[in-house]
Protein backbone atom coordinates (compact mmCIF):
# COMPACT_ATOMS: atom_id res chain seq x y z
CA UNK A 1 0.00 0.00 0.00
CA UNK A 2 1.21 3.49 -0.83
CA UNK A 3 1.70 6.46 1.45
CA UNK A 4 -1.04 8.49 -0.26
CA UNK A 5 -4.56 7.09 -0.20
CA UNK A 6 -8.08 8.16 -1.13
CA UNK A 7 -9.58 5.97 1.60
CA UNK A 8 -10.07 6.73 5.30
CA UNK A 9 -6.97 6.72 7.52
CA UNK A 10 -6.77 4.95 10.85
CA UNK A 11 -3.90 5.05 13.31
CA UNK A 12 -4.35 1.54 14.76
CA UNK A 13 -3.15 -0.38 11.66
CA UNK A 14 -0.12 1.91 11.38
CA UNK A 15 0.80 1.29 15.02
CA UNK A 16 0.33 -2.45 14.49
CA UNK A 17 2.61 -2.30 11.44
CA UNK A 18 5.56 -0.80 13.34
CA UNK A 19 5.29 -2.37 16.77
CA UNK A 20 7.50 -5.31 17.71
CA UNK A 21 8.60 -7.11 20.86
CA UNK A 22 11.93 -5.22 20.95
CA UNK A 23 10.28 -1.82 20.49
CA UNK A 24 8.98 -0.51 23.78
CA UNK A 25 7.69 2.84 22.60
CA UNK A 26 5.35 4.00 19.84
CA UNK A 27 4.79 7.72 19.21
CA UNK A 28 1.99 8.73 16.89
CA UNK A 29 0.51 11.82 15.28
CA UNK A 30 -2.95 12.16 13.76
CA UNK A 31 -3.79 15.30 11.79
CA UNK A 32 -7.52 16.10 11.54
CA UNK A 33 -9.55 18.52 9.43
CA UNK A 34 -10.15 21.64 11.53
CA UNK A 35 -13.49 23.49 11.53
CA UNK A 36 -11.93 26.96 11.15
CA UNK A 37 -9.19 28.77 9.23
CA UNK A 38 -8.22 32.39 9.96
CA UNK A 39 -11.59 33.12 11.55
CA UNK A 40 -13.72 31.47 8.88
CA UNK A 41 -15.85 28.38 9.33
CA UNK A 42 -14.62 25.44 7.23
CA UNK A 43 -17.27 23.04 5.89
CA UNK A 44 -15.08 20.61 3.95
CA UNK A 45 -11.85 20.48 1.99
CA UNK A 46 -10.21 18.78 -0.94
CA UNK A 47 -6.65 17.50 -0.81
CA UNK A 48 -4.97 16.93 -4.16
CA UNK A 49 -1.48 15.57 -4.77
CA UNK A 50 1.21 15.20 -7.39
CA UNK A 51 0.84 11.48 -6.81
CA UNK A 52 4.12 9.96 -8.03
CA UNK A 53 6.25 12.65 -6.37
CA UNK A 54 4.21 12.56 -3.15
CA UNK A 55 4.87 8.82 -2.92
CA UNK A 56 8.57 9.30 -3.65
CA UNK A 57 8.96 12.16 -1.16
CA UNK A 58 7.11 10.28 1.61
CA UNK A 59 9.41 7.31 0.98
CA UNK A 60 12.48 9.51 1.24
CA UNK A 61 11.25 11.09 4.51
CA UNK A 62 10.53 7.72 6.11
CA UNK A 63 13.92 6.39 4.98
CA UNK A 64 15.66 9.46 6.43
CA UNK A 65 13.95 8.97 9.81
CA UNK A 66 14.79 5.26 9.88
CA UNK A 67 18.39 6.11 9.00
CA UNK A 68 18.73 8.82 11.64
CA UNK A 69 17.05 7.03 14.54
CA UNK A 70 16.59 3.35 15.43
CA UNK A 71 12.91 3.40 14.51
CA UNK A 72 10.32 1.88 12.24
CA UNK A 73 7.95 4.46 10.75
CA UNK A 74 4.52 4.16 9.11
CA UNK A 75 2.97 7.13 7.28
CA UNK A 76 -0.30 7.80 5.43
CA UNK A 77 -1.74 10.96 3.87
CA UNK A 78 -5.28 11.11 2.58
CA UNK A 79 -6.38 12.86 -0.62
CA UNK A 80 -9.85 13.66 -1.96
CA UNK A 81 -12.79 15.33 -0.23
CA UNK A 82 -12.64 15.34 3.59
CA UNK A 83 -15.14 16.54 6.18
CA UNK A 84 -14.39 18.33 9.45
CA UNK A 85 -12.92 15.80 11.88
CA UNK A 86 -11.67 13.40 9.20
CA UNK A 87 -8.07 12.22 9.54
CA UNK A 88 -5.83 13.79 6.88
CA UNK A 89 -2.44 12.44 7.93
CA UNK A 90 -1.14 9.79 10.32
CA UNK A 91 2.36 8.92 11.51
CA UNK A 92 3.48 6.11 13.81
CA UNK A 93 7.09 5.64 14.92
CA UNK A 94 8.23 2.72 17.06
CA UNK A 95 11.55 2.38 18.83
CA UNK A 96 13.15 0.62 21.77
CA UNK A 97 12.74 3.80 23.83
CA UNK A 98 10.42 6.79 23.72
CA UNK A 99 12.97 9.51 22.92
CA UNK A 100 13.73 8.17 19.46
CA UNK A 101 10.08 7.40 18.76
CA UNK A 102 9.01 10.98 19.60
CA UNK A 103 11.90 12.51 17.64
CA UNK A 104 11.25 10.45 14.52
CA UNK A 105 7.48 11.05 14.62
CA UNK A 106 8.01 14.82 14.92
CA UNK A 107 10.57 14.81 12.11
CA UNK A 108 8.30 12.93 9.74
CA UNK A 109 5.22 15.15 10.18
CA UNK A 110 7.26 18.36 9.89
CA UNK A 111 9.02 17.15 6.73
CA UNK A 112 5.71 15.98 5.22
CA UNK A 113 4.30 19.50 5.65
CA UNK A 114 7.45 21.07 4.23
CA UNK A 115 8.20 18.77 1.28
CA UNK A 116 5.34 16.55 0.09
CA UNK A 117 3.49 17.99 -2.94
CA UNK A 118 -0.07 18.08 -1.61
CA UNK A 119 -2.52 21.01 -1.87
CA UNK A 120 -5.63 21.89 0.08
CA UNK A 121 -8.75 23.69 -1.15
CA UNK A 122 -11.05 24.81 1.64
CA UNK A 123 -14.80 25.40 1.34
CA UNK A 124 -16.08 28.01 3.81
CA UNK A 125 -19.54 28.55 5.28
CA UNK A 126 -19.67 31.97 3.57
CA UNK A 127 -19.59 30.22 0.17
CA UNK A 128 -15.99 31.01 -0.78
CA UNK A 129 -13.47 28.40 -1.88
CA UNK A 130 -9.74 29.02 -1.45
CA UNK A 131 -6.48 27.20 -2.20
CA UNK A 132 -4.72 27.34 1.15
CA UNK A 133 -1.31 29.04 1.07
CA UNK A 134 0.54 28.49 4.37
CA UNK A 135 3.26 30.92 3.23
CA UNK A 136 0.84 33.85 2.74
CA UNK A 137 0.57 34.52 6.48
CA UNK A 138 4.36 34.79 6.75
CA UNK A 139 4.49 37.17 3.77
CA UNK A 140 1.83 39.45 5.31
CA UNK A 141 3.54 39.54 8.70
Amino acid at each position, binding site marked *: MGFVTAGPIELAPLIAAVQASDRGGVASFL*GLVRDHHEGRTVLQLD*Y*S*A*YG*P*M*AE*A*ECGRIVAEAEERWRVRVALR*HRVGTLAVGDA*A*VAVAAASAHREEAFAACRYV*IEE*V*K*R*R*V*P*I*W*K*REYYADGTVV*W*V*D*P*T*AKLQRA
Partner: protein
Amino acid sequence: MPASVTPSLTVRVLLFASYAEALGFETAELTVPSPATLSTVMERLRALPGGDQLPPKPLCARNLAHVTADEPVAAGDEIAVLPPLAGG
Protein backbone atom coordinates in the same frame (compact mmCIF):
# COMPACT_ATOMS: atom_id res chain seq x y z
CA MET B 1 22.96 19.91 -37.92
CA PRO B 2 23.22 23.21 -39.86
CA ALA B 3 24.87 26.00 -37.87
CA SER B 4 21.77 28.18 -38.32
CA VAL B 5 19.58 25.80 -36.33
CA THR B 6 19.54 26.57 -32.62
CA PRO B 7 19.67 23.37 -30.57
CA SER B 8 16.56 22.88 -28.47
CA LEU B 9 15.06 20.44 -26.04
CA THR B 10 11.50 19.56 -25.08
CA VAL B 11 10.32 18.95 -21.53
CA ARG B 12 6.97 17.94 -20.09
CA VAL B 13 5.61 20.57 -17.70
CA LEU B 14 3.04 19.79 -14.99
CA LEU B 15 1.02 22.46 -13.18
CA PHE B 16 -1.07 21.92 -10.07
CA ALA B 17 -3.80 23.52 -7.97
CA SER B 18 -3.84 27.35 -8.20
CA TYR B 19 -1.12 27.40 -10.87
CA ALA B 20 -3.09 25.05 -13.15
CA GLU B 21 -6.12 27.32 -12.73
CA ALA B 22 -4.04 30.45 -13.48
CA LEU B 23 -2.70 29.11 -16.79
CA GLY B 24 -5.71 26.96 -17.70
CA PHE B 25 -3.84 23.67 -18.22
CA GLU B 26 -2.27 20.89 -16.18
CA THR B 27 0.26 19.48 -18.64
CA ALA B 28 2.18 20.86 -21.61
CA GLU B 29 5.19 20.07 -23.78
CA LEU B 30 7.53 23.08 -23.85
CA THR B 31 10.50 23.46 -26.19
CA VAL B 32 13.32 25.74 -25.06
CA PRO B 33 16.81 26.53 -26.43
CA SER B 34 19.47 24.06 -25.29
CA PRO B 35 21.30 24.04 -22.94
CA ALA B 36 18.62 25.10 -20.49
CA THR B 37 18.00 25.37 -16.76
CA LEU B 38 14.79 25.42 -14.81
CA SER B 39 14.87 29.23 -15.06
CA THR B 40 14.69 28.97 -18.87
CA VAL B 41 11.54 26.85 -18.60
CA MET B 42 10.02 29.25 -16.04
CA GLU B 43 10.61 32.24 -18.35
CA ARG B 44 8.70 30.44 -21.11
CA LEU B 45 5.87 29.55 -18.76
CA ARG B 46 5.59 33.08 -17.39
CA ALA B 47 5.28 34.42 -20.95
CA LEU B 48 2.12 32.33 -21.56
CA PRO B 49 -1.39 33.76 -20.91
CA GLY B 50 -1.93 33.75 -17.14
CA GLY B 51 1.78 33.09 -16.60
CA ASP B 52 2.23 36.43 -14.87
CA GLN B 53 0.42 34.89 -11.88
CA LEU B 54 3.35 32.52 -11.30
CA PRO B 55 6.11 33.77 -9.01
CA PRO B 56 9.52 34.19 -10.72
CA LYS B 57 11.02 31.37 -8.66
CA PRO B 58 8.27 28.96 -7.61
CA LEU B 59 8.91 25.66 -5.88
CA CYS B 60 9.82 23.16 -8.63
CA ALA B 61 10.55 19.49 -9.08
CA ARG B 62 12.50 17.70 -11.80
CA ASN B 63 11.71 14.02 -12.31
CA LEU B 64 9.93 13.72 -8.92
CA ALA B 65 12.54 15.50 -6.76
CA HIS B 66 12.74 19.10 -5.49
CA VAL B 67 15.28 21.24 -7.36
CA THR B 68 16.38 24.89 -7.46
CA ALA B 69 16.12 27.37 -10.34
CA ASP B 70 19.70 26.81 -11.54
CA GLU B 71 19.07 23.06 -12.09
CA PRO B 72 19.97 22.00 -15.67
CA VAL B 73 17.12 20.34 -17.57
CA ALA B 74 17.38 17.63 -20.22
CA ALA B 75 15.12 16.52 -23.07
CA GLY B 76 12.23 14.41 -21.79
CA ASP B 77 12.41 15.69 -18.22
CA GLU B 78 9.19 16.01 -16.21
CA ILE B 79 9.20 19.50 -14.69
CA ALA B 80 6.53 20.19 -12.05
CA VAL B 81 5.71 23.69 -10.86
CA LEU B 82 4.43 23.45 -7.31
CA PRO B 83 2.18 26.01 -5.58
CA PRO B 84 2.80 26.51 -1.83
CA LEU B 85 2.46 23.07 -0.25
CA ALA B 86 -0.43 22.54 2.15
CA GLY B 87 -0.30 18.89 3.15
CA GLY B 88 -0.37 17.58 6.68
